[in-house]
């Protein structure tokens, strides 16, 4: 137990120190984690930790990340990008594999070993690239989309690769492997290899079955994801929300992701691919934002852990011994990958900054390389010593990737500013509005926004309300809008406006405070419960404060005027006059407002309010004595005697 706590503490502290530092220096979080991993590797060695084991656990972060990526992509978008997915991704994987294999053969390696190495190096790092693209807000750019398409194809390509690799097995490597298998400790490909074997060996629904059964089971598994996502989740989530406990929802979300990953690995498919599909199926669900905000912290922590293990797993002894070789191969591989990517970018018409983002971003080898390497060693495809070097190359290239992103940002982007500006036109310019609380109040606001063609993001915490609205084809996202992470998932970062229409004075105030502080670019329209709440919200930083019953009460008053026989236009003027006076009163009494003290206990407030009321009464009386009823001043005639001399035309 102490050992476990020790380990967790070491990882957490390392991340907490290194990542903000790296962010501060503009290096991005990934490099921060990698450096943290390198820094703690002596401690981990001293603690005798199996880093590779941890890395396997942490790889689940990639699975979660792909789930989240899927949530952002609905099936229509996925279908629309199918050609680029196959073209761009397929070309990248096949051309890079063949070129690297050819070069390896030229260096005297056997063709089967060369091909395996080609596959290992062809794959890029989904974890690093997507994390960095998201962090820098480049995901929606052309280059970011291209990168994503390639990465997605690679994730799919891993599956046939895993099927293909055992066929390349070498008998002499197998003999060699049995001799050395005990001599390797915490790091290195062998421990990795056994795990890899485990994943695909011990539990499986498909092993040992004839091909047609495998096919059927696989199809059924993929089909069940669609079924779970589109049919089962809604009643499930509705059931879960009855408990009204957040952790239960989080547990459900986790169970969904982990369960699908399990199902996928049982049938020998990529868990990442499975959860990605589940994400796509759920992309249109009203629970999307809630799922996003629940899974996201786990993804972040696990990926951070994963990056740290990459840093920590670098075998510096081996690196020092083969420094020139490893660095040489790393640079060679990255150059080659970049070359292939650059040509593909040209062919697929990525221009300017996007082409460079695509070229530099995907030039590394990635975490699937680790998986493939361990698998190849386990299946006796690559000899142990070559795998060790290859492992270092993969890690080194991942370590260099953040540097390439920095080079892209600092060196290339400034020169291509013009091209970037032109490309910016393609980005969706529609303003984004979030409405929190879709009830009697928020619903009206949202309808008014739709009238002018806006599509506000609607968030509400009542599952019942959601069900009712479904019938009217109104799409409302389930979630507690007062939670910062949910606002994040709903896109507060690039929102233009937030309309707060929830109940609960305190919650409205807190939400206003939070958004005003952390997202000062967002225009906040807040609903106030009463007059003191107006002051609270003003202090909290709301831009427009609307008293929830004021306008309707004024209208009721106006109707009363009309029913009393006052001319409708006069009634309107009187209502306006009342609003103006009330507003003056609101401003005048603001100075004596004490936050947290009810007005009925605030002596100063009572005294001032009385005084102001008396003053106003007096004014009203005076007005009556002079020009008749208040509210008609502009149109009442001047006294007859003066009228003859004035040029004004009044009846």
């Amino acid at each position, binding site marked *: 137990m102490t050992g476990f706590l020790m380990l967790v503490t070491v990882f957490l502290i390392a991340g907490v120190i290194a990542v903000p530092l790296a962010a501060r220096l503009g290096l991005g979080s990934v490099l921060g984690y990698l450096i943290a991993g390198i820094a703690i590797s002596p401690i981990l060695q001293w603690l005798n930790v199996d880093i590779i084991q941890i890395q396997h656990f942490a790889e689940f972060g990639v699975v979660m990340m792909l789930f989240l990526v899927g949530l952002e992509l609905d099936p229509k978008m996925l279908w629309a990008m199918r050609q680029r997915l196959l073209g761009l991704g397929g070309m990248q994987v096949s051309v890079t594999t063949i070129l690297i294999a050819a070069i390896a053969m030229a260096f005297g390696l056997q063709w089967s070993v060369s091909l395996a190495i080609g596959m290992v190096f062809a794959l890029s790092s989904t974890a690093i690239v997507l994390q960095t693209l998201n962090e820098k807000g480049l995901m929606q750019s052309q280059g970011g989309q291209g990168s994503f398409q390639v990465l997605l194809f690679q994730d799919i390509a891993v599956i046939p690769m895993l099927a293909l690799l055992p066929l390349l097995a070498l008998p002499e490597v197998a003999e060699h492997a049995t001799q050395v298998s005990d001599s390797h400790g915490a790091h290195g490909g062998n421990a990795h290899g056994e795990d890899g074997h485990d994943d695909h060996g011990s539990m499986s629904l498909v092993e040992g079955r004839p091909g047609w059964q495998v096919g059927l089971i696989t199809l059924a598994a993929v089909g069940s994801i669609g079924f779970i996502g589109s049919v089962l989740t809604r009643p499930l989530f509705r059931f879960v929300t009855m408990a009204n406990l957040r952790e239960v929802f989080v547990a459900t979300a986790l169970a969904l992701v982990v369960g699908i990953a399990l199902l996928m690995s049982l049938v020998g498919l990529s868990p990442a691919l499975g959860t990605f599909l589940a994400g796509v199926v759920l992309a249109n669900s009203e629970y999307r934002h809630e799922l996003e905000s629940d899974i996201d912290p786990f993804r972040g922590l696990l990926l951070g852990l994963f990056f740290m293990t990459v840093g920590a797993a670098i075998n510096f002894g081996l690196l020092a011994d083969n420094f020139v070789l490893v660095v040489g191969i790393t640079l060679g591989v990255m150059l080659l990958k970049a070359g292939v990517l650059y040509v593909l970018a040209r062919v697929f018409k990525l221009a300017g900054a996007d082409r460079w983002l695509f070229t530099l971003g995907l030039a590394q080898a990635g975490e699937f390389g680790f998986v493939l390497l361990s698998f190849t060693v386990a299946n006796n495809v690559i000899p142990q010593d070559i795998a060790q070097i290859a492992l270092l190359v993969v890690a080194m290239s991942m370590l260099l990737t953040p540097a390439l992103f920095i080079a892209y940002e600092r060196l290339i982007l400034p020169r291509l500013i013009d091209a970037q500006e032109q490309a910016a036109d393609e980005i969706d310019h529609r303003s984004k509005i979030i409405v929190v609380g879709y009830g009697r109040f928020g619903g009206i606001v949202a309808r008014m926004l739709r009238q002018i063609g806006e599509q506000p993001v609607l968030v509400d915490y009542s599952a019942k309300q959601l069900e009712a609205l479904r019938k009217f084809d109104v799409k409302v996202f389930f979630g507690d809008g007062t939670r910062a992470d949910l606002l994040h998932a709903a896109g507060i970062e690039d929102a233009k406006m937030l309309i707060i229409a929830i109940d609960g004075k305190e919650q409205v105030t807190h939400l206003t405070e939070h958004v005003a502080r952390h997202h000062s670019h967002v225009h906040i329209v807040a609903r106030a419960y009463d007059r003191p709440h107006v002051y609270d919200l003003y202090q909290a930083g709301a831009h427009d404060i609307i008293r929830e019953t004021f306008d309707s009460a004024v209208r009721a008053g106006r109707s009363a005027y009309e029913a009393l026989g006052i*001319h*409708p236009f006069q009634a309107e003027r009187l209502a306006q006059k009342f609003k103006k006076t009330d507003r003056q009163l609101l401003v005048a009494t603001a100075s004596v407002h004490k936050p947290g003290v009810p007005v009925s206990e605030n002596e100063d407030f009572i005294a001032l309010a009385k005084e102001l009321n008396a003053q106003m009464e007096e004014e009203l009386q005076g007005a009556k004595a002079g020009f008749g009823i208040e509210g008609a001043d502009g*149109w009442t*005639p001047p006294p007859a005697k003066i009228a003859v001399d004035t040029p004004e*035309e009044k*009846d």
Partner: protein
Amino acid sequence: MKVLVYQAHPGAPHSEANKAMDVATDAVEGIEFVDLYATYPRFDIDVEVEQARLLRSDAILFQYPLFWYSTPSIIKEWQDLVLEHGFAYGSGGDKLTGKIWSMGITCGAPEEAYGAEGYNGFALRTLLTPMEQTARLCHMTFLPPYVLYGALAKREAHGLSPHAEGWRRWLIALRDDQVDLTKAGACDVIQAEDLNEVIR
């Protein structure tokens, strides 16, 4: 003739002259009266409803006090919205062709104030040319306005009943086709004392 009267006075309860005219005309049958400020206290004029009124009327009259040598603002708003292109003017805008367009105006200043010598500088008809041209552009017949000069002074001196009664007579005559349109059209303005000349 079907007569439509738009009344517009933002300070309606306090306008003696217009109130008297309203009272006098309230009893007239077969004429459509619309208090614009009461119908549209928030100026949200319903164009369809108003155009339908125009289509079923033969004479359109506005009853208002002269404000700043023009109409109260709601009449301008009504004109801006209701007299649409394609309805009242322009291509296909012939829906008002041949209808009578006129007004009943109360002026605070006395008659002599209107003209080159008076402090208002222009004759009333000159000040009303926008109304006249509006009628022309919409293919309507402009009928000289029924006018009460010096409304404020008259309120004090003789009372308003002769004028209000005249307004009632004028509207009934229009309704019953008793107005000699040629004679009336030749007038500059029509006052209560001119009615015997122009009504058959």
